[in-house]
């Protein structure tokens, strides 16, 4: 049994809390919105009574955790703030995981007190093939930190892929041009949004249509992620297609905004 300190009770954070609790780790959850953290903790407890999930209010409450996880939104200022706070409570043998995918681990870790402890821990959504985490070492990450991260990921039932410190890592790096091309096909009026999702599910065999998925995960998030990847790599396939920027400017961010890609079949 290990103490896990988790910052960020959003989608990724709640999935990790769930997985940690299921295998018997003690989870301490911190979110700037305490009620959100309480809700996630309660959901996890409801799933299995024997689990130990607590909510803490300050970073000092995470001291002594063997694994510290940053799972806040993919925004540089948020990432930096949380990582530096976590580095200040970590001990020499702590491993500090960041769920970032569009920044390099090297860049995120460089200004921190414990750069050797920082490991990229990019969690992808659950699929019928399991749930993937991409583990990435930065230039200053120690091999033992990577080993700890790999062992932790395997313990909580993730499929583990250790990859290089590339923007977007591998799965998202490959997926983003695919999604951008779909958005451009819509702007080119090749077909209607609902037909895109029908073709990709019926013809390519995906479980969820790509536009329904973008609506669910946030069109603004995809725009930001592919834009950052483009800035780092300058691959035109990563350049955000103009329709994405127009949609985000108009507030069409997807399900959370009440509108995004319209006319899709309801799942």
């Amino acid at each position: 049994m290990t103490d896990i300190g988790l910052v960020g009770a959003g989608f990724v954070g709640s999935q990790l809390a769930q997985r940690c609790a299921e295998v018997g780790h003690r989870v301490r959850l911190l979110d700037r919105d305490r009620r959100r953290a309480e809700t996630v903790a309660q959901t996890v407890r409801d799933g299995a009574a024997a689990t130990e999930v607590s909510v803490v209010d300050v970073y000092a409450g995470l001291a002594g955790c063997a694994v510290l996880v940053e799972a806040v939104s993919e925004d540089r200022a948020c990432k930096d703030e949380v990582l530096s706070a976590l580095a200040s409570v970590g001990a020499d043998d702590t491993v500090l995981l960041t769920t970032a995918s569009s920044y390099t681990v090297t860049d995120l870790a460089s200004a921190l007190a414990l750069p050797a402890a920082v490991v990229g821990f990019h969690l992808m959504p659950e699929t019928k093939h399991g749930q993937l985490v991409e583990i990435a070492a930065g230039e200053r990450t120690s091999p033992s930190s990577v080993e700890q991260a790999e062992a932790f990921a395997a313990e909580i039932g993730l499929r583990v892929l250790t990859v290089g410190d590339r923007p977007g890592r591998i799965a998202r790096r490959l997926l983003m041009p695919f999604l951008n091309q779909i958005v451009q096909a819509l702007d080119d009026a090749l077909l209607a949004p609902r037909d895109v999702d029908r073709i990709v599910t019926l013809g390519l065999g995906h479980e969820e249509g790509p536009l329904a998925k973008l609506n669910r995960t946030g069109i603004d998030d995809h725009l930001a992620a592919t834009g950052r990847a483009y800035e780092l790599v300058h691959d035109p396939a990563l350049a955000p297609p103009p329709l994405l920027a127009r949609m985000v400017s108009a507030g069409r961010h997807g399900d959370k905004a009440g509108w995004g890609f319209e006319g899709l079949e309801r799942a």
Partner: protein
Amino acid sequence: MSELDTVAVLGTGTMGAGIATAVARSGRQVLLVDTAPDRALAGRRSVADTLATGVRRGNLTAAERDETLDRVRPVSSLPEIADAAVVIEAVPEDLEVKAEVLKRVEQVCSSEVVLHTNTSTLSVTAIAGRLHRPDRLIGTHYCNPADRMRLVEVAPARQSDPAVVQQTVEFVRHLGKDPVVLKDTPGLLTNYLLVPFENDCVRALEAGWATAEEIDLAVTAGAGFPMGVFRLLDLVGLDVHRAVSMSLYDQFHDQRFAPPPLVARMVAAGELGRKSGTGFYRYED
């Protein structure tokens, strides 16, 4: 067209036999055409094999299999399809070959015939441009295996008669499949999306990002694809993938469509995938 109307399928390869199976299953009479008599017979045997598999899997009864097979007649002379209401062309993916076959069909069939071209990379409009009656042609792209996959992409040529589009949508629905109408664009949507994605994966492999197994894991458990790209490419055949990529690259001139050098090297080395025993993976059987 009525249910009594006959459908001719030209080409007895994987797609031709699969489409013939799907059409015969819908209750229509099928003429399975190949100018080489032995290939026409072999095509009918492929249909029989597919139906037999369906019986084993419990998808149809033995009686249904026999009735369906009775509706498929192998034909090796083109004038025999004169009365067909719909002609589905599934000959090799080459603009010249497809145009030549369809021009000969125009000479034997009525001016009311509807011509479907099952192309995965070519411009339907370009094929129509070669015909005497371009308004009678439409693109229909079936997914492999055609007897089981529900999606059919329907791409009208710029010249297609709107009535032909409507009839084709109804024809596909009558097969029990889901038609999606989209603009005539090389690769339609499936190959337009899939081929550059596959090439991106090959380039990632060639650049040493990870092994084929690892990238396949990223693509399935990470990106949510049903099958690893390298498993899929081995199944499709590296030679086929290179030809499809090249055809799309020739039309788009976008480097994502260009077959990566690794594909060319594998083809040169005879590593074609499953059919040659070696591709991105090794196969022992």
